């Protein structure tokens, strides 16, 4: 893989405006219960039907962190070469993460990313700043945030 165009290996290979779109996934009851067990969040709004009936939504809602984690995982699945390039060095953090609408059992979500900023960072690693949007089947926005990713630089920083 030594092509020039459309191959993203190191920080320099990216450009503001780059987009990543993912496949979609339907959130099931199983997802909610599995996630509760995995992280230990058994809040009744997620797992108690009777409690949820009395809530403003009238039904169980998925944990916000499911959409948050899947926004990353869906990108890794759908666009691995771009989202986890050769120079991928981990996530640095997130800014302004907001959960803007509840995700219900049966909703189908997908994530979109747009590269909105490239910070020079250190000699070794630069930072890619992606604006991430998680959308439901009817295009309703359910999560938005800015992801900061560390990607190694070509040359001395590549360590090769």
């Amino acid at each position, binding site marked *: 893989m030594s092509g020039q165009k459309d191959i993203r290996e190191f920080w320099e290979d990216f450009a503001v405006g780059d987009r990543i779109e993912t496949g979609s996934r339907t959130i099931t009851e199983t997802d909610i219960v599995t996630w509760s067990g995995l992280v*230990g969040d058994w809040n009744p709004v997620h797992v108690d039907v009777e409690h949820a009936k009395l809530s403003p939504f009238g039904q169980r809602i998925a944990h916000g*962190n499911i959409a*948050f*984690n899947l926004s990353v995982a869906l990108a890794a699945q759908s666009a*691995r070469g771009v989202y986890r390039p050769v120079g991928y060095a*981990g996530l640095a*953090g*997130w*800014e302004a993460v907001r959960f803007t609408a509840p995700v219900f059992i049966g909703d189908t979500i997908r994530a979109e990313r747009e590269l909105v900023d490239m910070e020079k960072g250190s000699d070794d690693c630069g930072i890619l700043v992606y604006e991430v949007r998680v959308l439901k089947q009817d295009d309703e926005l359910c999560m938005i945030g800015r992801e900061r990713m560390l990607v190694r630089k070509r040359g001395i920083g590549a360590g090769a």
Partner: protein
Amino acid sequence: MDGHRRRRANAKSIRDAEDEPPAPVARAPASRAPGRGAVNGAASGTSPLEKLYFEDYAVGESFESVGRTFTEADLVLYSMFTGDWDRLLTSDGRWKVPEMFAYSVGLCLLLGIGRFVYMPRSFIAFYGFDHITFGTEIGIGDTIRSTVTVTDLVERDEGRGIIVWRHETVDQHGRQVCSSNHRALCGRRGEQ
């Protein structure tokens, strides 16, 4: 502490001694043996820390969770759940806990401090995370625990207020694994 218990066990039967609460604290089930968090922090899950309203918090108030060790099962289950099977490694060659997973677990450890402690009973809505940082990488076998501190209390209107928190998750060496600033809208105590 163990020796103390043993001595008492000589006077009574072992079962009696174990059933006797050490202090006015309610007896914890055997599965809730005191861990690091219970020893270090005020929150063992049995003390009357439950919060109802915005007014029940003070700036600077802090809570500490118990610890949790990441196992291989955790990482396999996380990969199964997300479908993300990229196995990244720590610098010493162990399977790295994905930042997002460490963060999610670190945050949920705060819920284990007790029901309606970190979030009050009158919780209305979670705004989201204003600022999240990922620090030291961790792998299988590492243990995290979390603390959360109230950094600001903002009165929004007569009935509602915003609690602002700073959360920090550290590993067994005290190195910061992740942190966040986040806010929640909560109910206020009525006049009455």
